[in-house]
């Protein structure tokens, strides 16, 4: 809640001609990316730079990692170079957790394997709150809102983080997917489960579509992309079943024509571009709270904005 409210304060900055705050001047943030992820890396980079932090981008390709250096050694090297925070994206679940045990500075999980992607969930919650809780959103949760998350939950770190965060904030979360793409123990999660997307749509305030990797087909998770799309893709006809106010979300990158039709992605219900903008704001809030101190005073913005 503190993060969302801080992000709300910082959001007003985005409307200003000069978007920079001096708060993290002299601090160094390292983007340690073991997976290709243009969108998340740039988002973290923009967030850190708007707070005046120095940003070092470290991509696993073409670095010592390609020569076989371990995650631990890389982490210790970066720490020795004075990183105050490490933003890590890694293909192994738990990589951020391991890293946090090896370094003194702050560690931000920018997505670890099929485990979690916490800042994505934060920006999604922020987006939902702004869209569906109009008026004064400060301090507001997501009570009473019904969120349906659709697709490859089994392999999705976005889904895991969203189930946890949105349920804590009071939303009722339902996962809609073929049984093969749900964890066997999904019953222990704080959410409902449905195999039938169509029956969920009329009662959804938010529909969040997950990216479907086409290679899942070869592991027999579903018979064909066409069948997946037919049963779980959000097309125009399905969108029409949504309540008037409902929004459509996607963490990106999208497979247009697979899990989401182009007309839906580009419709007024879609928050996809907004999610990207909110991503920067939310990540600024996280960096600010980790490295900059306590709650963001509302009065500080006029005082420091040049």
């Amino acid at each position, binding site marked *: 809640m503190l993060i969302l409210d801080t992000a709300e304060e910082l959001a007003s900055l985005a409307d200003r001609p000069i978007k920079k705050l001096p708060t993290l001047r002299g601090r160094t943030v390292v983007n340690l990316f073991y997976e290709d992820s243009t969108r998340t890396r740039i988002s973290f980079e923009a967030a850190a730079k708007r707070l005046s932090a120095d940003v070092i981008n470290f991509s696993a390709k073409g670095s010592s990692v390609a020569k076989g250096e371990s995650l631990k050694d890389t982490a210790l090297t970066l720490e020795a170079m004075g990183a105050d925070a490490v933003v890590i994206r890694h293909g192994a679940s738990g990589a951020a957790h*391991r890293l946090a045990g090896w370094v003194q500075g702050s560690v931000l999980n920018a997505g670890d394997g099929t*485990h979690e992607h916490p800042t994505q969930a934060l920006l999604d919650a922020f987006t939902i709150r702004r869209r569906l809780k109009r008026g004064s959103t400060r301090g507001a949760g997501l009570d009473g809102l019904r969120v349906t998350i659709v697709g490859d939950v089994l392999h999705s770190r976005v889904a895991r983080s969203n189930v946890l965060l949105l349920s804590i904030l009071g939303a009722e979360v339902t996962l809609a997917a073929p049984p093969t793409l749900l964890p066997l123990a999904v019953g222990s999660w704080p959410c409902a489960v449905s195999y039938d997307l169509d029956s969920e749509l009329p009662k959804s305030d938010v529909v969040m579509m997950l990216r479907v990797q086409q290679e899942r087909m070869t592991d027999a998770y579903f018979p064909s992309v066409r069948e997946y799309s037919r049963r779980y893709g959000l097309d125009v006809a399905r969108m029409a079943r949504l309540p008037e106010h409902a929004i459509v979300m996607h963490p990106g990158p999208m497979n247009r024509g697979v899990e989401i039709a182009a007309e839906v992605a580009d419709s007024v219900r879609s928050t996809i571009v907004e999610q990207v903008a909110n991503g920067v704001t939310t990540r600024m809030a996280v960096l600010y709270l980790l490295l900059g101190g306590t709650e963001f005073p509302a009065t500080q913005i006029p005082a420091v904005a040049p």
Partner: protein
Amino acid sequence: MTGGRPATGGADQARWLIRGVTVPGHGDRERAVADILLRDGSVAVIGTGLSDAGARVLDAGGLIALPGLVDLHTHLREPGREDAETVETGTAAAALGGYTAVHAMANTDPVADTAGVVEQVWRLGRAAGHCDVQPVGAVTVGLAGARLAELGTMADSAARVRVFSDDGRCVADPLLMRRALEYVKAFDGVIAQHAQDPRLTEHAQLNEGEMSARLGLAGWPAVAEEAIIARDCLLAAHVGSALHICHVSTAGSAEIIRWAKSKGWPVTAEVTPHHLLLTDELAAGYDPVFKVNPPLRTEADVAELRRALADGTIDCVATDHAPHPVEAKETEWSEAAFGMTGLETALRVVQLAMVDTGLLDWPGVADRMSVRPARIGRLTGHGAPLAAGVPANLTLYDPAAPAEAVRPGASKSRNTPFAGMELPGRVVATFLRGTPTVLDGKLA
């Protein structure tokens, strides 16, 4: 409690008098206190008030004497991974854990799939002298699961191999498994199966359940173990040959084995100390020291495995001692090697999980950790209940030693899941054919 001290005047190194030790099961009593005289590599007498002026005396009041422990499942890593363990360090760890014989698994580099390699390992064991090393031969060439290794040649070699296993890999091909089972009947062999359906466990990292779902780690489902065990029990019954199932880890597996045994089929099974004590909850911190294959399961599985070991459905405890160098574990979970060390802690864990819980008495421990594993491994000279005339392989253990945190021991590797955990008991001494390999808890 004390080390050996020479009796006055010309102590004979070949004779030991162990005084006032409890011999579980002796004279059909659970706790019989007696003296044991070891002479010429054998147990000469068990009785009260024994004396022998020429023998070294070990005051063993409060200790219990078990037949020397036998491990059916040890990875000594030599040849090939001497950075993780050698026959010397691994057998030293075994002796400190109370073992007088270990079965060395075949997944070395080169693989123990020829007479040359098994004889080398056997000879290294003899040279080290801490305990007997009985090599296990690979079932298939290079553990590749494609064609049978020369099982008969390994059986006829100096190493006299009787247990064959592709451990680490499952003999998944049902036809190959059938043939292997059939073939070893010619020399009273046994196939020890690592039960893991390969397709059901691709990229598997952790028991499939609540923890794997929460942690986002690919699941290792119980059914992948149970399906192979069920199939192999049926195959063993069909061809009438001996099947041994390695490191049983699920409640369902125990149930299938119980059913197979009720039919009178020639099936035996082992469970590891870690599967008797630890659960997949420990993976919560992503520390790969808890990464093992088969994976740690749930509390319900642990409870059922204990019950199955107590009622004899599972025949024995085997360590699956799997040493790895630091760098193989100081990584992301999915990058890390599977495996845990276990030789030095096995008996203490069994005391905690089985004896202190009232599930098994000390004669039962002797049966599950010495008598039965020796029988399954076709080892002569080990696993005989302590009595006059048997080879003097025995372990003196102090079950009342205050619980102490597990510390690094003789193994070259440090990947014990019990590090820092307080375990009861202490191995005080180990004798191999009348000669101490461990005294006062230290290598002799």
